């Protein structure tokens, strides 16, 4: 046994998982019923040529490559370039494409925070989320507490994230669906006038694009 992963990665597994299955990874702990179901289903679908082992691997790599950095690049561009912002508010997927970012086929709508309006996103029915721009959702986004309460009492939920919304600012909650997702275009923090696009994008957090936090430079 070598390395930190608990098993030897030194030989090439080739087109995992078949005919040389090695999964699930031992570091996932005991093989649960649902883990076995996942592996069995993946193998059956590959055997039946519904998808190939290679397509499966590439899909895993694609989602691993998705992070809040892509959404953050778009936000920074929108802050710097008013024309881009207009295009992004009209059509996020097309604006992403313009920057070489694949936002996927499901429409995403950007909702802009202003001094008068604070936006926050949720999916009350399940967990729809702009994953192609900001990666997989955090656990709390999928939780009963967040989904139940943020539509009824968003200010209290935001306070749990340390975000205080003044009474004179309107809070808008956007409930995502399988066919339309949202992302928040946060307000550009004060004191960032001299920063370039790359430096600005580094300021933009995942949570600010969900709308549970504001951006600050302190």
């Amino acid at each position, binding site marked *: *046994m070598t390395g930190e992963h608990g*098993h*030897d990665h030194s030989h090439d597994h080739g087109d995992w998982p078949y005919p040389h*299955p*090695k*999964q*699930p*990874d*031992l*570091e*996932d702990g005991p*093989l*649960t*019923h*649902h*883990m*076995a*179901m*996942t*592996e*069995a*289903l*993946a*193998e*059956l*679908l590959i055997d*039946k040529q*519904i*998808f190939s082992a290679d*397509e*499966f691997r590439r*899909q*895993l790599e694609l*989602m*691993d490559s998705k992070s809040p950095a892509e959404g953050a690049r778009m936000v920074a561009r929108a802050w710097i370039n008013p024309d881009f912002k207009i295009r992004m508010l009209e059509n996020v997927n097309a604006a992403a494409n313009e920057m070489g970012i694949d936002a996927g*086929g499901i429409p995403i709508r950007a909702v802009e925070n202003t001094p008068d309006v604070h936006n926050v996103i949720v999916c*009350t*029915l*399940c*967990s*729809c989320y702009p994953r192609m721009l900001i990666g*997989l959702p*955090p*656990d*709390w986004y*999928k*939780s*009963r*507490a*967040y*989904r*139940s*309460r943020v*539509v*009824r009492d968003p200010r209290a*939920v935001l306070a*749990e*994230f340390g975000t205080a919304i003044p009474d004179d600012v309107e809070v808008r909650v956007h*409930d995502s669906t*399988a066919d339309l997702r949202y992302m928040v275009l946060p307000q550009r923090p004060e004191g960032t006038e001299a920063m370039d696009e790359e430096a600005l994008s580094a300021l933009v957090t995942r949570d600010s694009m969900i709308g549970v936090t504001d951006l600050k430079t302190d």
Partner: protein
Amino acid sequence: MRRHHDMGGQAAGPVDLTEHDHSAWEKRVDAIMRLVGDDTRKLMSVDELRRGIEELGPGAYDELNYYERWIASITNILIEKGVISIDELGRRMEDVKTRWQAQSEETS
């Protein structure tokens, strides 16, 4: 009548802000769903995924974790559509368990 998953506006406790990194098998569930639902295959939609999760019932909804609900729903729907059979799934799951056991013994 409001169904179990339809929880918007209900009372609930504070939001638990603890996060975990997705494990390898969770990412595989996600990848399977994306592939069977993509424009090439169109074997099942996200709406069907949710319908399958809702049909697991209130008990399963609360006892299973997120990706356990997903794989249970995907599997049920692909069986329903005749893409796989319940028998071959059961046999393959036994194979997976046997191989995993052998591998654990080999590396422990």
